[in-house]
């Protein structure tokens, strides 16, 4: 086959070709007395980039439950969850993220219209394989300031929650944070539409009663 005329630089063969040598391979020995490039984990620490795409954080007050994050998620790891905190139903559903599926692409953070969903540089997904730890990585993220607070105490890039308890009967979830704080809420249901438990809104009913009188 004839090639078209070449109008770009082609390297001459003399530059590419090498000559075999019996002595040169021994020059590698000069590194024998130099410091190793490897580091001793866990005695030494690696520096993680500031904007490393790790676990999520969620500002519950900012989240408007638009489900953009759930729609863009390539792994379908996000489920919108209706939540009750201290007897008060949150007005909008919040994303619940399953790290068994998450690919850490963070497109959900990019599309979040209010900037509620964010990420922190914590990335350690390992556990000690205790039964209670296996339920850890499926959570509704907590406030970024709280995670930062925990990170200052434990700078080892681990998950900010030490234990998550889920009561199957009452649907109550308890987060035992690493700094000793306990955070409780109740899951009312999943999906975009409010579940039956979240539907009756006492505030509105009261208003209706008041207006005719």
């Amino acid at each position, binding site marked *: *086959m004839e*090639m078209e005329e*070449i109008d*770009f*630089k*082609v*390297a001459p*063969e003399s*530059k*590419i*070709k*090498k*000559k*075999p*040598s*019996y002595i*040169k*391979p021994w*020059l*590698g020995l000069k*590194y024998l007395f130099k410091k190793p*490039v*490897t580091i001793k984990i866990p005695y030494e620490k690696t520096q*993680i*980039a500031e*904007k*490393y*795409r790790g676990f999520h954080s969620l500002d519950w007050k900012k989240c408007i439950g638009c489900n*953009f994050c759930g*729609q*863009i*998620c*390539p*792994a379908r790891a996000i489920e919108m969850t209706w939540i009750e905190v201290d007897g008060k139903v949150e007005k909008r559903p919040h994303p619940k993220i399953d790290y068994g599926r998450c*690919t*850490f*692409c*963070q*497109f959900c953070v*990019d*599309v979040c*219209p209010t900037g509620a969903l964010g990420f922190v540089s914590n990335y350690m997904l390992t556990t000690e394989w205790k039964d209670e730890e296996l339920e850890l990585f499926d959570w509704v993220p907590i406030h970024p300031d709280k995670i930062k607070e925990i990170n200052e105490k434990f700078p080892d890039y681990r998950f900010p929650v030490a234990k998550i308890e889920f009561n199957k009967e009452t649907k109550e979830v308890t987060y035992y944070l690493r700094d000793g704080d306990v955070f409780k809420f109740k899951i009312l249901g999943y999906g975009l539409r409010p579940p039956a438990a979240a539907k009756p809104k006492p505030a509105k009913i009261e208003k209706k009663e008041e207006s005719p009188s």
Partner: protein
Amino acid sequence: MVSQSELIKEARENGMELLPLDKDTYELFFGPQHMATENFSIILKMDGHRVVKAIANPGFLHRGFEKLAELRPWYTNIALLLRICVPEPDVPEAIYSMAVDELMGWEVPERAHWIRTTVLEMARVSAYLFWIMGLSFKLGVYTAGQWAAAYRERLMALFEELTGARVYHIYTIPGGVRRDIPGDKWLRQLKDTVEYIKSKLPDFDHLVFENYITFKRMEGIGVMDKKFALAEGVTGPNLRATGVPYDVRRMDPYLLYPELDFEVPVLKEGDALARALIRRYELEQDLYILEQLLEMGPPSGPYKVQDPRLKNLPRFKVPAGDAFAHVESTKGDFGAYVVSDGGNKPYRVQIRGPSIAHGIRVLEQLLVGARIADVPVILMSLDNCPPDIDR
């Protein structure tokens, strides 16, 4: 005792084919656990220590990328398609993004062009270092392999700073890139890294490319000629090693490559050694390109297109049409053909990967007559990406 002919007859009655036993040869399963094959397997029919017939046995990484891409929104596909080539994930990202840019009719800002070119070249350097690691492990020169891994680590740290991830960057998106350059500090670090790796190239030469063991192991094995290579659709360094000066960066220039100065290495031998030396020279040229890019400096301006349609990404729609974009990766000519029917998901994403040509037909024919110890060397000299074969 049932005779062989009876067994064959019985198998045929049940709709199966049983081949007659050949007492001179034996079958050897090479991979997928074998370190050299990287989730890829070859069934070798051996006569003593010579290969009589080789059958590639891929499929261990099959994830159905192309079909999955039809089920996901346009932007989300970036997080999926980059898994096609793990050592240089920026290439599938770039081709898909370039094709979607063409469909949208976007003019990508200059700063994004500069960042994309830099990221592609960084990916090339890191992929070549990864390849040196693989090759030297297969040749038994473990020291150089460890060095290559250590130097690649520096590039991974830079990628981490820029993109937020070490291996799966998910950085190049349609319309530009996801994040801006972190600052001048990052550019200085990149410059230092390029200089550092450049200063270490002679060490690789001493241990691997000028080593007499390399010449003894690689010279004259896995030879393919020009005609065969062109007929089988071989691209990239493998084609250049047979004497065809084909480089997508020069033949069909994209991004900033028309403005950059570099040499395309071509050798005529077509054996494993020629392929290795071509790659070695390209690593040097890639570092030279990175130096030029750093000298040029990133142009000011936005790093992605400003389009109101980007505010609603889940319902982002691409006008109907089709587009093809391809880039030169370290494996060869990587291309993406994207068809849109105007919806919020692609109608079809077809990836033209180089490894399917290198890893199946070419490998099967090059292995015939090779010694068993040369099988990993030939496999590594072709430098294929198993997930690309299984697409």
